[in-house]
């Protein structure tokens, strides 16, 4: 593994994503995982996944090295792991805030009862219309299962955030979907435009929302944020050269933390470390290496922090500073390098 010896003094991150499994019971058209939803389910059930003891050991190891405060449990679908309650109990014993990132279809009363304490669920709700949600999720019945699951979380007094992934097929449903999310008890909304990757690039023409669609959606979110006071976050960058996001006061826009202290390094089911959940580049394995070595010394991490896409060089400085070239992980997935601009920018031919 390429390592460089010089030491940086930057602060360590306190938030991590732990992918507990590659398995998923949905087959989302927009799935951002590099291998796509079908390949994720080819492996025999649970093969290559760390067991409960290994996962808890890994968390303990991370806590020994870092000031860990938040861990998001993701996948695949984390509720497919039967030991999720034990993993959550271990996180609580370490005073770590757990988040479960879920497609919401397995939030049965029993699963909610076993996981709800002190957890925030991030649940994907793609439309107020069952047909649209099911089409995008690749499975009939998914919408009703999510609906029931969110009802179960609310009834159990749990906290949840609805996640809307915007595509050409569902962007018109945003207003009613936000209202449904509120009615179901969501305490916040995360709005993500579809993020491109090596698997879903083939669907870009059919699914990737155009700038005018995103603009329309942001107007809806701004109004909803003002009307209902709902906290709204945009996590996947909407680059300001494509849509001017600076006028929105009720929306919190997220930008790539560039592998710095605000990042959420991601650990896969085998212990491999990546810069974020969208990046396909494995930096090392946490079972054999220290996170500090990866964070401070890995040549790819340094390159990721320093590089700026050539396509963005002509951008005004204030825009450059805001978006830092967009999602480098998406560029890595689609073009094999973080030195290109986010494919969302390139496809919209702004430069």
């Amino acid at each position: 593994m390429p390592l460089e010896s010089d030491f940086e003094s930057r602060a360590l991150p306190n938030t991590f994503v732990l992918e507990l499994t590659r398995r998923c019971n949905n087959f989302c058209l927009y799935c951002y995982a590099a291998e796509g939803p079908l390949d994720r389910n080819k492996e025999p059930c649970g093969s290559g996944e760390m067991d409960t003891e290994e996962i808890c050991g890994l968390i303990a190891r991370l806590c020994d090295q870092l000031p860990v405060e938040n861990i998001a449990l993701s996948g695949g679908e984390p509720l497919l792991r039967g030991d999720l309650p034990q993993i959550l109990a271990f996180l609580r014993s370490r005073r770590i805030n757990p988040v479960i990132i879920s497609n919401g279809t397995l939030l049965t009363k029993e699963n909610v009862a076993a996981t709800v304490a002190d957890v925030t669920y991030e649940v994907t709700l793609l439309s107020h219309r069952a047909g649209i949600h099911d089409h995008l999720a690749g499975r009939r019945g998914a919408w009703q299962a999510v609906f029931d699951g969110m009802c179960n979380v609310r009834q159990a007094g749990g906290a949840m955030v609805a996640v809307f992934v915007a595509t050409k097929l569902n962007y018109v449903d945003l207003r009613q979907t936000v209202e449904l999310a509120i009615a179901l008890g969501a305490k916040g909304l995360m709005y993500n435009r579809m993020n491109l990757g090596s698997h879903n690039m083939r669907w870009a023409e059919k699914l990737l929302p155009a700038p005018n669609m995103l603009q329309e959606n942001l107007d809806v979110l701004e109004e909803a944020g003002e009307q209902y006071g709902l906290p709204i976050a945009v996590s996947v960058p909407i680059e300001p050269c494509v849509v001017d996001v600076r006028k929105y006061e009720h929306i919190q826009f997220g930008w790539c933390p560039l592998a710095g202290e605000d990042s959420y390094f991601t650990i896969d089911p085998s212990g491999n470390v990546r810069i974020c959940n969208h990046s396909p580049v494995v930096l090392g394995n946490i079972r054999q290496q220290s996170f500090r070595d990866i964070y401070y010394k890995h040549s790819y991490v340094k390159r990721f922090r320093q590089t700026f896409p050539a396509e963005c060089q002509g951008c005004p400085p204030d825009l450059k500073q805001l978006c830092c070239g967009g999602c480098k992980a998406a560029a890595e997935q689609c073009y094999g390098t973080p030195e290109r601009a986010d494919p969302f920018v390139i496809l919209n031919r702004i430069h």
Partner: protein
Amino acid sequence: MSTMGTVLFKEGNFFVDVEGKHELIPVGHEDAPHLKQLVGKKVEVVFSEPTRFIAGLIPTEETLVKIVKVLCYIPAPDFRTAVVVGEHARIEIAKRMLDAGQLSKENFAKITAPQEMKRTA
């Protein structure tokens, strides 16, 4: 954990008076205008756990239109303490969706089912 309090402004800082004790409100530069509007008003104060700090303030009147700034916003776990839409408003939205044919009666019943006790570990 939450309790009731009154927002105060003293010597350039915002506090919330909770049972006579003044708790300092952590303020980002975007929060000050919102907090100014709350000075002198009763609010529900949400404290983080296990480390106790003020994570959110919720105006007490329950209306359909309620603007609440969540003070600590990112990362996602901070959504935990945001209680932004009151129960009455939530049901109103569900009723509207039922009337518009966007919700079935069966699903409406699920949305309006009573909440159980909050679970904690």
